[in-house]
C-alpha cells in the first residue's frame, strides 16, 4: 500500500488522528466526512461483532463500527469520558460510522516517515497501511477501505 503511495508524486498526506484506548490511530482526511458526538445505536441482530448498530444521521441510516472491537483492543471497562466520537467515513461500500475514544487532530505525515507494519496481523494485514512517525508520536495508519468493510467474508473467522 505504502509503496503505491510513494509511487505517486505525493510527498505527504493529511490525516485525522484519533485515540482508541491508549493507542493513536490516523486515517486519510479524504475518507472522513464529518465527526459527530456519540449517540445511541440501534442494535442489529446477527451483525458482525464489531458493528455497534445503526444510527439515524439526518434521515440516513448509517452502520456504526466500534473501533476498539474492530482492532481487537481491550474493551472491558466501558467508560465514557465524554470525548467519544463517531467519525463518519466514506467507504466504497457506503458511509460508515467509526466509534473512537477521542479525535485528537489533523496532521500532515511525510510519506518517508511511514513504515509498513512489522506486525503479524494474519488475515487482517490489509486493514493497516503502516505506522507513521510524527514528532515524538507513532500513529497506526488505518486503511479505512479495508478496515471498515462490512463484508462478512473479509473479516475472517473471528466472529
Amino acid at each position: 500500500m505504502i509503496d503505491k503511495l510513494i509511487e505517486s508524486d505525493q510527498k505527504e498526506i493529511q490525516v485525522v488522528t484519533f485515540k482508541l484506548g491508549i493507542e493513536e490511530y490516523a486515517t486519510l482526511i479524504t475518507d472522513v466526512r464529518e465527526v459527530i458526538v456519540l449517540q445511541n445505536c440501534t442494535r442489529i441482530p446477527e451483525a458482525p461483532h464489531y458493528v455497534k448498530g445503526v444510527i439515524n444521521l439526518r434521515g440516513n441510516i448509517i452502520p456504526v463500527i466500534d473501533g476498539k472491537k474492530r482492532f481487537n483492543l481491550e474493551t472491558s471497562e466501558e467508560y465514557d469520558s465524554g470525548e467519544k466520537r463517531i467519525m463518519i467515513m466514506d467507504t466504497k461500500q457506503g458511509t460508515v460510522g467509526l466509534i473512537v475514544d477521542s479525535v485528537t487532530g489533523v496532521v500532515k505525515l511525510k510519506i518517508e516517515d511511514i513504515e509498513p507494519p512489522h506486525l503479524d496481523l494474519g488475515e487482517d494485514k490489509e486493514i493497516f497501511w503502516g505506522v507513521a512517525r510524527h514528532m515524538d508520536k507513532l500513529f497506526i495508519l488505518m486503511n479505512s477501505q479495508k478496515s471498515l468493510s462490512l463484508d462478512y467474508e473479509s473479516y475472517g473467522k473471528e466472529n
Partner: protein
Amino acid sequence: MNTDNLLGLFIDESKENLQFLNNKLLELEKKPEDFSLLNEIFRIAHTFKGMSKTMGFNRMGDLTHNLENLLELLRSGQITIDEKIITCLFKGFDKLEILMATIIETGNETECPGIKEFIKELKEIAPFNDPENEPEIQTDINTSLASYELLAIEEAIAQGYSPKEISVYIENECVMPGVRCYMVNSLLENQGEIFKTIPTVEEIESNKFLTCPQTKHLVKFFIITKTESDIIMQKILSVSEIEKVEILDIKDSKKSYDIQEKESEKNKQSSKITSHTVRVNAERLDNLVNLVGELIINKTRLSQLTQEINNPELNGVSAYIESITGEIQDIVMNLRMVPIEQVFSRFPRLVRDISKEMDKDVNLIIQGQEIEIDRSLIDEIAEPLVHIIRNALDHGLETREERIKAGKKVKGTLQLIAHSEYNKILIKIIDDGKGIDTEKIYQKALEKGLILPKDRESRTESEIMEYLFLPGFSTAEKTTDLSGRGVGMDVVKTKITALNGTVNIKSEKGIGTTVTITLPSTLAITQALLVEVGEETYALPLNYINEVIEIPINQVKHIQNKEVINFRGCVIPIKRLDELLNVPECSIFNTDKLTLVLIQSEENLVAVSVSKIINQQEIVIKTLNKNLSSKNYVSGVTTLGNGQIALILNVNTLIR
C-alpha cells in the same frame, strides 16, 4: 365570500394550467402551423386569467390578459408565430410561475420585479386595441336627431304609432355594457323599428357610451312602436345590470321609473351529481391512510374477540369487515399512486431551455409516462433526474459542429424512458452524445489521489465510472452555469439510495451514455406492525401478518422439543423473536401470556412471539447494508416519528 378556502384549489389548478401552457407552447414551437394548439393555449390562458382575477391576484390576471392579447393577435393572423414570440410567451409563463410561487409561499401576490417592463415589451410586440383598458370616449358622440329622422317620427305618429325615446342606464360596474345594449336592442327589435341609437351601434361596439351623473353607460334608443311603455320597460328591465330605464313618448310627457326588486333567500339540502374526478388534499389522504391503519388494528382486535366469543353470526360479520377493510386499504394505497408524468412533464421545458442556452439541437423522447409510482417518490426523484438530464445536455451531447465532425445527426437525442419490471421501476436517461471518457475520470481520480497508476489496468470501465459518484468529483473541464458545480452524481446517488434504489451509468465513447435509475415500485412505503421485543422495536411488514393473538402460556405445547400452539385446528410452530434475534434482557418468559403474531409466507405459517404490540403504521423503508445482518433477518430500516430507528424484519428468513 371567503376566498381563502379556494386558495388551495386555485393553486393546484393553476399549477396544472401553467404546466399545460408550457407543454402546449413547446408543441406549438414544433408545429407553429397547428392552429388547434394555439386555441388550446388561448383557452387555458383565458381560464387562468379568470381564476386569477377571481382570487384578486390582479398582477397575475393583468399579465395573463396581456399574454392573451398577444395570443389573440396570433389567432387572428395579425402577427405570425416566430421564435421571438415563442420565447416571449415562455418568458411570460415564467413570470406567472414566479407570481405563483409567491402565492404558494405567502398566500398572497407580491410585487415581482420585471413584470411591468415585460408587459411593456409585450405591448410593443402586440399593439392590441384593448377595449377594456381604453378610456371611454364620448366627446364625438352626436346626440341630435337628423332632420330625416324627425320626419320619420312625424310620419309614424300620423300612422298611429307612438315613437319613443328610451334611455337605458347601464350599471357602472357592468363589465360588458356593449353586450347589455345588444340584449336590449334585440328585445326592442321585436317590438318595433329602432331607427336610431345614440351612440351608434359601431360606437357601442368599441365601448363608447353617453355619460351622465348616474352612469357612464347611457344609451338612447329611438323606436317606432305600438307597444305600451310599461311593457317595454318591463322587458328591458329583465336584462341584468340595467340600472334604470326612462321612456319618453315623443310629444308626450317624460316618465321615469325606479327599479325595486326583492331578495329571495332559502336554504335546502340537495342531492347532486359531481364530475368524475375529485381533488383531494394530500394531507387528508395521509389522514385517511392513518385511519385505515387504525381500522386495521381494530379489525384485528375484532377478529380476536370473535374467536373468543365464537358466535357464528359474529364470525360472519367479522370476516366480512376483515375483507372490506383489506379492500379499503388496497384502494387507499392505490390512491397514493400517481403517473410518473407528473415529474416528466416538467422536462420538455427544461430540455428546451438548456439546449437553447447551450445552442445545441436536442430531440427529447419521453416514454412510459403512464407508469405509476408512489406520490412520495415524485418529489424525491425530480431533483436527481434534473441533474442527470443537465449532465446529459451539458457534458453528454456535443455541439453541432462536433456532431457533424463525428458523422452524427446534427440533432442530438435525449430519451427519458420509464418502465416497470417485476417489483421495480426503471427510469433510463439515454443520450447519443460523446459518452463519458473513462480516461478523463481516471486522470481526475489520479489527480485526487483516489487511484494509483498501477491499478489502472485492473479496473474495469464500470469501476472507473463509479468514481463519478464520489462527493465533489466532477469531470467538467469548465464549470458552466448548468452543471459541474461540485454537487454532482454523488448527490444523485445519495438521493436514490435513500429511496431504496440504485443508479447505474453505462457509456460508450462516441455513442452515448445511459443512466439507469432503479426504484422499488412496491414502494418505499408500506404498512407495518411495530412490535417491541425486550427493549427493542421492530417492524413486521403487514402483508405477511395474518393476525395477532394472545394466548395463555399453558396453551403452548411441545413437539420434539419445539414449541407449538394448536390454533384453529392447526399446529403452528412458535418462534421466539427474543431468542432468534438475541435480544438482551428479554422477559417474554416471565409473563403468563404470550403475544403471538401469526405470520404467513407462502405455505408456512408461524407464530412469532413478541413482548408487546405497539401499533400499526405506515413506514418508509430504507436499505441496510446486506452484510450487516448475516442471517438476513433484517430487510431494511425505518425511522419513527421520534427519530428512533426500527429494524424491519425479513419475514421470509425469519420463519424458515
